[in-house]
């Protein structure tokens, strides 16, 4: 690799730029269009600039109860995030030693990741339907359903977020210097102290990354939720429903708001990660600098 940039660099750089435009261009089109004037339609040109369509979303006129769906998705996303972080870190620690069923758990996680979502969704729906039937047959005549946001819906989301969490943990521990733990143990730290004061601070930036995946994947999840969410809808499900009925830019306004939440979460996570990394560098140990 010589110092001067070759011609292929410029070709590839142009290709990459085109790809990034392809990724972001359409999204920004609807962010702009959500500020359409009151008489504006679904396409360009802009017919004035206004916040009318955002107002429509908030007042809920015409559209289903978006504010409620918004709250539900937010709550579910936060719960999924916390569970994804806790379960992934815990399992990630387990994988550093060998335990019975380690290979099985690994393959199950991969299978869950690549399983067509509709099959997972159908399976969970069936499971809860059979459970309901069983409960009703057992005598609870006024039983409606065990299916819901925080039962079947939560489970469905976890089958999607946990594999990502586990794979990130693998990536972390592949690079982890276990001599640090040994040093802590040699200095008399208990396993919990070793984890709390040595391991956790080092892996924390990546753990924040797991949280980011947990929340955003749940916030936007659609295919696995479709059959498992019960009587109420999450935000993406409502959005999908609106694609066939709505002919006004309020759907763009809703899309812009939904994305704004995603971007806010991404931004916060990245800031936290950067701050943590900077702190590590500042307070960082002299590890890796050799013996003096």
């Amino acid at each position, binding site marked *: 690799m010589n110092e001067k940039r070759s011609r292929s660099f410029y070709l590839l750089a142009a290709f990459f730029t085109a790809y990034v435009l392809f990724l972001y261009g359409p999204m920004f089109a609807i962010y702009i269009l959500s500020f359409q004037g009151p008489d504006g339609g679904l396409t360009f040109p802009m017919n004035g600039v206004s916040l009318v369509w955002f107002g429509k979303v908030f007042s809920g006129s015409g559209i289903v109860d978006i504010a409620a769906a918004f709250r539900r998705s937010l709550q579910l996303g936060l719960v999924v995030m916390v569970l994804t972080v806790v379960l992934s870190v815990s399992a990630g620690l387990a994988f550093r030693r060998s335990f019975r069923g380690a290979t099985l758990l690994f393959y199950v996680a991969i299978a869950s990741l690549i399983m067509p979502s509709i099959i997972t969704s159908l*399976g969970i729906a069936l499971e809860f339907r059979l459970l309901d039937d069983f409960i009703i047959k057992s005598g609870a005549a006024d039983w409606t359903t065990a299916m819901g946001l925080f039962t079947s819906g939560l489970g469905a989301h976890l089958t999607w977020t946990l594999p990502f969490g586990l794979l990130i943990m693998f990536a972390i521990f592949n690079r982890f210097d276990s001599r640090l733990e040994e040093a802590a143990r040699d200095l008399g730290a208990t396993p919990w102290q070793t984890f709390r004061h040595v391991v956790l601070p080092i892996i924390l930036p990546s753990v924040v990354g797991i949280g980011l995946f947990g929340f955003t994947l749940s916030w936007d999840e659609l295919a696995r939720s479709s059959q498992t969410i019960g009587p109420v809808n999450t935000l993406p499900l409502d959005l999908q429903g609106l*694609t066939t009925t709505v002919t006004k830019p309020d759907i763009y306004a809703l899309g812009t708001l939904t994305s704004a939440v995603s971007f806010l979460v991404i931004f916060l996570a990245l800031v936290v990660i950067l701050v943590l990394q900077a702190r590590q560098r500042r307070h960082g140990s002299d590890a890796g600098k050799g013996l003096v």
Partner: protein
Amino acid sequence: MQSKGGQGVDKSCCAITAIHPSMMQDRKTFVAWLQAAPMMLVFSVFFLLPLLLVTIVSAWDYNEYEMIPAFSLRGYSDTFEGCIADLPNLCTILKTYLKTLKLCLLTWSLTLLIGFTVAYFLAFHVRSKTWQIVLTLLCTIPFWTSNVIRMIAWIPLLGRNGLVNRGLEGVGLIRQPLEWLLFSEFSVVLALVHLFTFFMVVPIFNSMIRIDKRLIEAAYDAGATGWQTLVNVVIPLAKPGIVIGSIFVITIVMGDFVTIGVMGGQQIASAGKIIETRLNALQFPAAAANAVILLGITILIISALTRIVDVRKEL
């Protein structure tokens, strides 16, 4: 690697403190098992058991409004209805699967081509670590935003009065708006590529970043052209990433019903959509039978791909 070294040191430490090594080891595996148990539990209840139930219920009977727990292959026979009677014409299910495979193949080749090129640029042409992180992040951020919104986003561009049609009319290339731009197979493939190229970029980049740069220099020194280096050095070494990315994209597209639904204007049939339709009609055994068929085909494709590479080794 490092953890293995660590275990070796562990044993020596335990011998010093005079605790029997095997006891210590048992305790450790038990703790590890406890740590992994919650995740295993979630997968058991929400993944393994549901899959088992899908398989069982696929062989149940059903009527218009409920499933009947009695053995019947009606779910399967209904699915393949007319497949023999209609010969030589293809029955609905075969046509649907052919269409799904076609969409899958198109999406796979496009995502592979784009994903490989993007990963190649990031891995070999971006020299500073910081830039590599920033540009990778730039490719990842859309993945953290909503798929539905990224689909809707094509409407103002591809619609009858969209930017593309306006533009083409403006320069006089077409007189009437192109109808096949939106709610067509074209828009489905476009959206699938748009949404899922990310799943190719990440594993391929991951494979490429581990390629020893000296190998490439050696190839150049030995007189290989850029193209020869690409074909004989980079592609073989990036194969694991290519296979993993392909598995992702193929399984996603085979089971997709959301993108095909929204971008196909709910008019295009696919393997995933059949299941959804059956579910909406509350024909659970039929939906389950279709899920088993889809699963079978997906497993076939994956096992064919994993023959090429040991996936576990690459993670």
